[in-house]
């Protein structure tokens, strides 16, 4: 029997959303990769995922780069229409911290104990995770920082580790690089859905240059993805089939591909906001609960068992005689 609206509402099975957004390229002429990542970051934040649930990795700094004619901005549309950098961005891994090792450690959770929370992917078995990668890639690999690469087998194994450790409920993988479809060929874990901007043997192309900034601002696939996501709001019913139609070959020149065989639900029933947003499932109740005993504050001791009688002083900043005699 067909699912009712309420039944459908509670059927997706996830309770929280995470996003891992990675830009792997360095150097000023790869401005568009940073702009790609920031556009997805902006959409994901707008649709409700908080900064604490987003791990943003940018391999180079474009906004405050000395070559940027407008500092603290990263634009996605020419004529500086839309600043995707914004005023409240939080980058978790930046510069030389974006390495293959750190990326895999974030995914699998095997980080050193002193890593702060904002740099960890603290997902559980009811988390839906969105992973977005962009940069320069080839057949079966993605280049990090111009010095190392991650292969599609490593990525598939990382996802399998995540599945074994129950670190995700469902995972959406989007990649915007040349020959991007090769990166999801080797996946073998369940509940994975993948999208790529181009097939094996094809290049993903960049969109528009801006003459004032002097570089290409975005890649074609992510540009149309951003346009599509700007139409999505937290209550929208757009589903994955609409996402597969983003950027057909007439617009993108390359052929975007997708893979859904490992995914258990029908893509037509998967909402965009299941991955890009953080729609909280709220059940409204009219019952009231009586709180019985009031909270008792702990007694505030004065804490000064033995009062220091001698007065404290500031230290002399440049005790010349002491320094001369010390050496």
């Amino acid at each position: 029997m067909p699912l009712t609206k309420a039944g459908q509402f509670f059927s997706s099975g996830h309770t929280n959303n995470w996003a891992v957004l990675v830009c792997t390229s360095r150097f000023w002429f790869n401005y568009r990769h940073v702009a790609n990542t920031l556009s997805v970051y902006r959409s994901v934040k707008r649709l409700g995922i908080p900064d604490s649930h987003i791990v943003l990795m940018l391999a180079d700094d474009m906004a405050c780069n000395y070559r940027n004619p407008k500092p603290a901005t990263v634009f996605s549309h020419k004529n500086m229409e839309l600043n995707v950098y914004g005023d409240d961005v939080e980058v978790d891994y930046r510069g030389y911290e974006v390495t293959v090792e750190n990326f895999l450690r974030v995914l699998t959770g095997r980080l050193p104990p002193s890593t702060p929370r904002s740099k960890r992917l603290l997902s559980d078995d009811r988390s839906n995770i969105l992973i977005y990668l962009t940069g320069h890639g080839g057949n079966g690999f993605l280049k990090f920082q111009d010095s190392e690469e991650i292969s599609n087998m490593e990525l598939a194994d990382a996802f399998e580790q995540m599945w074994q450790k129950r670190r995700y409920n469902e995972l959406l993988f989007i990649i915007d690089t040349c020959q991007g479809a090769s990166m999801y060929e080797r996946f073998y874990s369940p509940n994975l859905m993948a999208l790529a901007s181009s097939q094996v043997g094809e290049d993903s192309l960049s969109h528009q240059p801006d003459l004032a900034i002097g570089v290409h601002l975005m890649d074609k696939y992510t540009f149309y993805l951003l346009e599509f996501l700007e139409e999505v709001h937290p209550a929208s019913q757009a589903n994955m089939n609409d996402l597969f139609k983003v950027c057909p070959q007439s617009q993108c020149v390359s052929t975007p591909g997708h893979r859904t065989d490992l995914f258990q639900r029908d893509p037509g029933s998967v909402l965009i906001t299941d991955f890009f947003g953080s729609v909280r499932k709220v059940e409204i109740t009219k019952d009231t609960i009586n709180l019985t005993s009031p909270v008792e504050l702990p007694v505030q001791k004065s804490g000064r068992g033995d009062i220091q009688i001698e007065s404290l002083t500031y230290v002399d900043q440049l005790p010349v005689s002491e320094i001369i005699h010390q050496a």
Partner: protein
Amino acid sequence: MAAHRYGLSLVFILIFSLLAHPSSCDTLEKANDNTGEKQSVSDAPQEVNTDGSAAVEDLNERQWQSTDVEVDRSDGTKDSETFTPAAAKDQFQEELVIRPLHSGDIYASFQFRTLWDIDFLQEGQKVSHYRLFPKSLGQVLSKFSVRELHISFTQGFWRTMQWGQPFIPSPPGAELWVWFHDTVSDVDGNWKELTNVLSGIFCASLNFIDLTNTVQPSASFKPLGLGNVTDHRFLRYATLPREIVCTENLTPWKKLLPCGSKAGLAVLMKSEKLFHSSFHSQAVHIRPVCQDEQCTSKAWELRQTLNVVFDLYTSGQGKKEWSLFKMFSRTLTEACPLATSSKIYVDITDNPEGELFELTPATPLLSQAVVLGDRRTYSVYDLTRAETFGQLRSLNLLLRWKGDSGDMLRPLLHAERYVAGFGLQTGEIHTVIYNNHPYRAFPVLLMDSVPWYLQLYIHTLTVTSKSRDNKPSE
């Protein structure tokens, strides 16, 4: 063995200005600190009796009234609805100092200061209620037993000869120095974990600080706060000169403020304007200070400072006319409601008759203070008073230059560094220190930290002053 440091030669200016710094801080704040530091402490009735002397101090007139508290101990009935919060033991002050520079640029320095009468490191007292002091920093201080923490992120180079001395000097990139409490057994371990935690808080790559770029200065750094312990084993210093400062560092910095960036002076902090400047530096300084005049107990002071120099040509479009709107693309409409004092100071020392520049709106309040050894006069705008905002309910200071400013006073101490030669065999590093005082000599302490890959030959060190070689003493 003196530790050598590479990268910034302004370190001894740090030392020198630190001499002047405590005084400048106190006098500036005395100018605006019209309320006393005394707070009313809530005591249970029992403690007043045993203590004898009144533990409750005078409650001075304040601009906001803290709620008086008596802990409700006698009333144990279940349906008592009164919930009395503890007395406020922290206060917050914000100020902005604007100094027009002779080259036509303008120097704006924000300072947000939170004072909290509590002792993190005291045994048996676990702090669980944070009001104005940010919880993330409070937990860091207690977990790692930190006595003092100074961290700064700077973009740009401070041009002493054109701009004078900065209020708080900072090297380009990131700088972190920490004094640990003397109860810490493993200082290096605490240091490593502290840098990782701070890298998460400030969205910076501070985790690249490790033992290869940390130094333990043995003579130059002294605690800026209270305390008798100056054992240098508990001091760690590191810089990351290549660290970039951008909006992602400003965002968590703004989140530490009690009013965030929603009210008070922090609404002026728009990253598109702040980073389009010649110099930008944001810092967090935490240290213990005296709670009152007698200085028998400690309070924690958190100072968040942001110094920015706007360039005449890039931000000013070449016109020697500055306003709050031109600098920050915002005007002020209110003070932060949680602040006891919220003021703007404009430096008018060089403009006693108004012949150099014109400042509108006019204000009757004036303040004088000794800053970095100089007596300066300031026009004060008090944001806690409604009449400051005028009829339009918004304050936009306008500073229009009228005449040519001429030359500014040469700063007393100044340093330069340059590289000569090339390669490891013939390369040289020259550090030149200038003393522009007509007759006085000053002791100067130079700390240089050299990265491990740069091999300096100590026997080639020559110290030349007035064209005569000096022989370093043993």
